[in-house]
Structures are given as C-alpha cells and as structure tokens.
C-alpha cells in the first residue's frame, strides 16, 4: 500500500510542474505561470507541516514513515530538508519573476525546469538507496544544465551550461561506477542494509575504492576543491536567479545526498572517508577563501564564497575518523543546521545582487560603490546578508559556525581539533572579502558615469517579498537559533536507529 500522505509533497509538486506547463500554453500574461508555481510550492509545504506535526495536527502517532521496502523514508530529517528545498524554490521563483520577464526568453519553461529541479531535491531528502539517490540527483542536475544556459544569446551563459554539463556528467559517471562496485560486492544498494554490510567490507580495498568514487561524484555536486573548477564560471555566466538556485538548492541537494551516504549508509566506514574529507574540507576552505579575496565581480565573489562555505559544511564530516556515535549525531546535526542557515542567508545575498544588478547594471564591485547613497535600503540588506555569511552575531550565520565548531571540537579527535583551527583562521580571512562589498557600498563615493543615482527603486513586489523573507529569517534565526538547534534531537534519533 502506498502512503499518500507521506508522498503528498512530491505528488503536489509533480502536479504543479505539469500545471505550470499547461498554464504557459493557455495564458498570455506569463506572470500567471509564476503565480501557479508559487501556489503549488505553497501547497506542497502544507503536507510537510501535517507530517512533521503529525500528532497535534492530524492525530497520527508516528513521524517516521518507511516506504518501498526501506528505499524511501520520510522522517524528521527528510521533512526539515524538504521544507528547506520548497522554501528555497519559493524564494528562487520570487527572485526570477522580473529577471526572466525582462529577458524575454521562455518564461513558462523556466519555471517548469526550476520546479522539476526542486522536485528532485525533495526526492533526494527521502532517498535511502542508490537508485533513488541517482534519480533524484539527475532530476536536480538536468534542469540545472538547461537553466544555466538560459540566455542562449550570451556566450558566457553558454559556457556556463557547457562547463556545468560536462562536469556534471563526469560526476555522475564516477558516482555510478562507485555504486556498481559497492553493489557488486555487497549485493544490496539499500542504505540500511549497506550500513550493516559495510562492517565486514571495511578492509576490502575494492569496496573502499567504490565508496571513494561515490564521494568524488558528490564532490563535484557540492563544488568541493579540487572538483570545484566549474563553479565560478557557471555561477557568473548563468542568469543570476539560476545561480541563486544552483548555489543554494542544487548544492544543498548534493550535501543531502552526501549526508545520507556518509552518515546513514556508511557510518562504519568513517575512518576511511573521514580523513579524505578532512583534506577536502581543509583545501576547500582555503582555496575558496583565498581566491575570493581577489574577486572584483560580486557574483563571482559569491561563487567562491559558496565554495568556502562548502568547506565549512564539510568540516563536521572531516572530524569523524575515530569519533564516537554521539559525535556522529552531533556532526550530522551541525551539517543540517549549517545547510538551513546557509540557504536563508545566501538566497538573501543573491536577492540583493539581483536587485542591485537592475539598479547599477553591472556586477563589478567598483560600480557598486556608494550604493548607500542612492539605495540605502538595499545597502543595509547587503550588509545584513554579507555579514551573516561572515558569521557575525546576531545575524544567523554565527550559529551555523557555532554548530560547526561544536561538532568539530566535540568530536574529541585530533582531526576535529585541527579542522576547527583551520576553520577559525578561514573565518577570519572570509571577513575580509565579505566586508569589501559592504565597504564599497557604504564608504565609497558613487563612481562617475553610474546613472543609478537618478533612477528610482525598481525592486518589484516579488523581489521585495523574497528579500523580506530572507532578512526576517536571518535576523530571527540569529536571535532565536533554538529553532534550528531543535534539529539535534532528530539527528540523534536517526543515528541511534542505525547503531
């Protein structure tokens, strides 16, 4: 029997995807397409609430629902992430409305693809076997390739799509190869069985190689160094709302896959993947931060910043070699908490960039100088999101960092202590480049030849709503981080269930 309640978010999203296509056919004003998409996303959020607050809302007793012989699980962890993805897609649609309209490309198809990708991410949250993971990953990636190349007359956009596509396909190939090795050895591709089976294969080199290939495949997806090289060009060339989705939705989907694989399928292998991810996390932080310092283009800056954040999110993974089960659940929680906060603040940062681009018509930092003089509100939002990304209290970013340090130091392993020190040093470096755009916006004079000073504010209602939601999230989560910290209870349940 199929549990329709548990699958309701996915089903509603799937219906919305089709409805968007139909709407595009029948209406002339394409704004309605966006409206249908937004309504659909909102509707998909409702069952997430009824599932999460099962008992008070609909009177059922069990939050965790296992389907398809354990391949698809709806539990608190999955629900939190589904909510995150639907929220991210909601904001991404809001960010896109004007941008896509002003470009005069295919508006209807745009929202169709964006929602498909969101559906993939939602599926990813519940996927508990490799087939589901791969299907979800492709559902996220495929539309991403097309969206990146949306401005087909723009060379950079073409380059963005091509780089993304080639690296994405390579990643998939590696992933599939790894999966086939693991499946060949263990005879199962379902995570709960793998968690038990992997204990006997820990010492088998071939099995280790399989796991490594899987990790590398996800390394591309989350743009961890050295698999990151496609990221800056793709981010810069894609339409900015698409970049926002790629940097938040698509990347988070990658991390969710990685989390499920590392913590749910292969927790027994943590002595193998821990040290490797230690190296990857350290290098990712350092490269992302150091290269970001030199950036003069604000979108590229956010691109490298998102690479650096990938390093921070990987830090709890990196501390896991030799760690206890309690430390595992702590790290699991830290990564999920970081992802949540990262999504809110990064969407906001991209929102500001989109609003600013329509104002100053350039992504070069020098042209953003003196933003405070002609758009004070936008400048304040810029400062809010960028300093949140830098991790300065009382903006939400500080709690993400706190959770990360808590997990790394709390692991009690030398891997954890050392990655924590590296992360601290990197957080300080990061402040420099996050302060830079804020500095130009507030402290510098408006450059000659920028006419933005004269034009009135052009931020549309949709953009304003997106920015308002994000800033409210950043401030609220910063002052009441308990909302995120509740997660630790769920993750410890999940980890406890595995062992």
């Amino acid at each position, binding site marked *: 029997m199929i549990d329709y309640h548990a699958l309701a978010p996915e089903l509603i999203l799937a219906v919305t995807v089709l409805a968007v296509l139909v709407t595009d056919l029948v209406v002339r004003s394409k704004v309605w397409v966006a409206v249908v998409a937004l309504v659909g996303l909102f509707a998909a959020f409702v069952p997430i609430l009824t599932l999460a607050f099962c008992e008070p809302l609909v009177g059922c007793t069990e939050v965790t629902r296992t389907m398809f012989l354990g391949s698809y699980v709806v539990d608190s962890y999955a629900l939190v992430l589904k909510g995150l993805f639907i929220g991210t897609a909601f904001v991404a649609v809001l960010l896109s409305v004007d941008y896509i309209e002003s470009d005069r490309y295919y508006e209807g198809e745009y929202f169709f693809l964006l929602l498909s990708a969101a559906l993939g991410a939602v599926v990813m949250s519940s996927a508990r076997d490799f087939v589901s993971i791969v299907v979800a990953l492709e559902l996220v990636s495929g539309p991403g390739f097309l969206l990146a190349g949306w401005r087909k007359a723009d060379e950079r956009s073409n380059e963005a799509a091509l780089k993304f596509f080639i690296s994405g396909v390579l990643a998939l190939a590696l992933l599939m190869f790894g999966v086939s090795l693991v499946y060949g050895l263990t005879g199962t591709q379902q995570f709960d069985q793998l968690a038990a089976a992997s204990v006997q294969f820990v010492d088998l080199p071939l099995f280790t190689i399989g796991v490594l290939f899987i990790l590398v495949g996800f390394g591309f997806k989350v743009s961890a160094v050295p698999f990151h090289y496609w990221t800056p060009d793709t981010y810069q060339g894609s339409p900015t709302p698409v970049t926002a989705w790629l940097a938040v939705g698509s990347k988070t989907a990658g991390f969710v896959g990685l989390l499920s694989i590392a913590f749910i399928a292969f927790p027994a292998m943590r002595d193998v993947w821990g040290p490797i991810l230690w190296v990857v996390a350290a290098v990712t932080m350092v490269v992302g931060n150091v290269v970001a310092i030199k950036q003069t283009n604000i979108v590229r800056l956010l691109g490298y910043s998102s690479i650096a954040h990938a390093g921070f999110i990987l830090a709890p993974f990196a501390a896991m070699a030799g760690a206890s089960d309690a430390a595992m659940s702590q790290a699991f929680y830290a990564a999920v908490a970081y992802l949540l906060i990262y999504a809110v603040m990064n969407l906001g940062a991209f929102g500001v960039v989109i609003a600013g681009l329509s104002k100053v018509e350039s992504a070069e930092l020098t042209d953003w100088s003196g933003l405070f003089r002609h758009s004070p509100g936008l400048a304040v939002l810029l400062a809010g999101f960028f300093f949140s990304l830098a991790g300065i209290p009382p903006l939400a970013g*500080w709690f993400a960092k706190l959770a990360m340090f*808590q997990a790394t130091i709390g692991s009690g392993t030398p891997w954890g202590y050392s990655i924590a020190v590296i992360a*601290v040093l990197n957080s300080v470096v990061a*402040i420099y480049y996050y*302060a830079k755009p804020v*500095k130009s916006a*507030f*402290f510098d004079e408006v450059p000659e030849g920028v006419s933005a000073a004269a034009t009135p504010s052009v931020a549309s209602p949709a953009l304003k709503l997106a920015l308002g939601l994000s800033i409210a999230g950043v401030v609220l989560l910063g002052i*009441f981080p308990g909302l995120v910290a509740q997660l630790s209870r769920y993750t410890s349940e999940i980890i406890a269930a595995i062992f």
Partner: protein
Amino acid sequence: MEWFDNGWGIALTVFLPLVGAVVLLAIPRAQEAALKWTALIFSGAAFVSGLALLFRFDFSRTGDLQLGANLNWIEAINARYHVGVDGISLPLVVLSVFITVLVVLYSWNHWPEPHNPKMLLALIMVIAVGMTGTFVALDLVLFFVFFEVVLLPMYFMIGIWGDRGVRHVPLFNWNIEMRLYASLKFFVFTLFGSAFMLLGFLALYFRSGDFLDHRTFDMLELAQLGSAGRFAGSFAFWVFFALFLGFAVKVPMWPLHTWLPDAHTAAPTIGSVILAAILLKLGTYAFIRISIPILPQEAKNWAWLIGVLAVIGIIYGSLACLAQTDMKRLIAYSSVGHMGFVMLGIATLTSIGINAAIIGMVAHGLITGLLFFLAGSMAHRYHTRDMGRLGGNMKLMPVMGVLLGFAAMASLGLPALAGFWGEFMALMASFNPLAGLDPTLFRGLMIAGAIGTVLTAGYMLWMLRSVNFGEPSDEWVGHDFHDVDAWEWLAWAPLVIATIAVGIYPRIVLGFTNDAVAQLVTRAFGG
C-alpha cells in the same frame, strides 16, 4: 517593583536602546529634530533604568549576582539567557548607559560628514545594546553575541564618518583613506581574537560535562567547576590562551594594540569616545569575569606574562605618545598605557589589584572620554589636530583650555582626581602580588610602572604646552573661535563632576567592588 528585580530592570537597561534604534529607522531621514529627541529619550530612559538598578541593588551583598534572570534561550545546546549584576559589573553598566546619553547630547550639533544623523544615531543605539549586554551576560554564548554586536556598528561608524585623510601603508604599499584602513583593521583584529575566544568557550562547554544534559555555558557553573579543578593541564592552557587572544585584542594589550591608535584617531569624535570609554573595558572585564574565575590555575601560571606585557604596554604607550604630532593620536596611545595599568592590576590577582583595575576602568572611561570630546571639538574649530600648528589655545578659547588642562591632569593621575586611584592601587598591589607569584618580578614591574607614570606626566604636560600655552600662531589671527557651547557643556560637565567625585570619594566605585572582588579572589584562589 518585583518585576523590575526579576530581570526586567536589566532587560530595560539593555534593550531600550534597541527599541530606540527600531523607532529611529521608522522616522524619515529629513526630520532631524525628531530623530535626535528619539535617541535622547531612549538613551535617557536606559540611563534612568540603569540608575534604578543602583537603587534596587542590595549593597550588603555585592558579591552576589542580583536583579537577574535565567531563561531558556537555545535549549539544544544549553545556552541560556542568564543575566545579572554584581559589584563588578554594575559600575560598568552604569558607565555605559551614562556615556551613551552624553554621546547623544554631544552629537546634537556636532555632525561628522557625511551628515545622516538617522543612521549614526541608530548605530549608537545598537552599540549601547552590545556594551551593556556584555556587562550583564552570565552565559558564554550570550556574552559572545553581545560582545560581537558592538563590532559592526563601530565598523560602520569609523568607515563612514571617519577621517578622510590619506595614509600610506608601507607593508602593502597602499595609499588608503584613514577611515577605510582603520575600520578594516579594527574589524579584522577584533574578529581574529573573538574567533579564538569562541573556540575557547566551546572547549569549556565540552569539558564541563560528559553528557549533553550536563554541559553548560553558564559562567557561574563553569567557575565552580574551575575552582574545583575540572579544567587542568594542557587543556586549560590552550583554553586560557584562546581566551587571552580574544580579550587581549579588545583591551588592547601590547603587542596586539596596533589597531587602537588607527581606530581611535580615524573614528569620528563620538566613535572615539565610545571606543575609549567603554569598548576597551569589554576585554578587561572579560579577564575578571571569565578567565580568572574559570581558569584560576592558568591565570596564576601566566600572571607574570600578563604583568610583563602590561608594563611593556605602559612604557611603550607613553613613549609612543611623546612621538606623536597628532593630538588625537596622542590621546589614543595614552589609552594603551592606561589599559596597561588596568591589566597590571589584574595580573597581581589580588583583591587590591582587581579593585584597582575596576576603578581604573571607570576613571579611564570618564577621563579619556572627556579628552576625546575635547580633541574632537578643537579639531572641529581649528580644522586640524596637528600640535605643531595649534598653540595658544588658552588665549583663543579659555574655557576649552581649562577643561583640557583639567582632563590632562586627571589623565596623568593627579591625586584627588579619578585617574589617581587606578594607577596608585595597581602599583601598590604589584608590591605584594598573590601568594605564589614571584614578588621580585612584580616589584620590578611596579618600578617600571612607576616610571611609566612619570612618562605619562611628561607627555600630558608636553601636549598641554604645545596646545594650550604660548602664543597662537599667525594662521589663527583674525579668526573668531566660539568657546564651549551649551550642548558641549551638557555633555562634558557630568564627566568633570564624576571625575572629581570619584577622585575625592573613591568609595563611589570601590563601595561596589570591594566585597565582590574579595569574594571572587577567595573563590578562585582560596582564602
């Protein structure tokens, strides 16, 4: 008044300015009068609430934390909204709300360029929240958040309203405006320190209990664990070191002080006043509130080093003052020296020394605040701070000159003014440091510190000579300088009165601190 004693009094004192900031943001930029009055009303209300704390405070048990609240905040990590005041923090809380009101009054008709009172006042309000919050926080996470809240507004204040002179930075071969250089340096230094401080806090948290439910960020519980010897060995060393980095940058202690002269000089007048009067105290306060009670053994092991660095700071700051030509920069360097005395007092780990530190903090807040006000107002009139060009101020602006003379005398530690007690008691304490510390070393430090006081007198008198005395140079002939105006009097008179009052009757401060400090020392190091 039950509600007032149950944490609401502290909450009002801390958060009223935050409400003020929100209200300010809602007022249109053009209505300057409304903006100013709003800021004055809210900062004034916070001040009144701070005074009310004094009346509700039970002076018979200053060592206990009073008027506090302890509520759930981030349940999952056991971080709580735990606040309270004792004899150590209350004087500093009152000092913060006091200085905030004065700063708002002073800014009434002194607007640094670019104008924008709305933003500037809102930033002052947010800074006030961070300052008072840091002094009342009794939970490490809460402390960290308040500690950092101050950072951004100050960064903007220096960067937007700061000094636009160009400065050459040899290391990077930059030519950069002072305000940009100073704001960035302030920001990066402070965050560098506080990042390590946060790591230290987390390490304490994990060592405080074996299971999630037993772990705590609570300063009082951690202090109990600390004096019971829970934190020991290399663990304690590394944590102490991490906290030291965070606090020492903020104080600032030599050799981490280099951000201070730049930030204080480049900041607009009110920014310099807030920095000097309150922000520097966050670091020294944290040593007293966190490092010593929680890690007493490490404090004892490293007191000699802190003492040595403090005295280097005293001598270095004084010598650097003698090399300055910029009046504001001279005052900034003098802070390095004065904070050296405060740290020397703390390093002795004795009751007298820590009392000296607290009264020294209050005195430095009053006196250096006044000095920066004066320097700002003079620069406002002369359009220069170059002491080579100034001179004969007594003839041009006699009242201002007298005030400057008064502030300089207070700063060099003239008896019967506030500055005297901190220096005197710090030196006295180093004659006889805590049992177990090397008395010979500390007596050497005492002598070096005493030489420092002589140097302080030297540079302060030198500044007075070149600014106040002599004949005005030709370039000022024919200018009509208006002397101290009404708003300036409003802002400065309270500082003058408080300086004299604390100087003549130090019990105003020591009455709070005496028992509280004695109790702290007993708890940390035993009878």
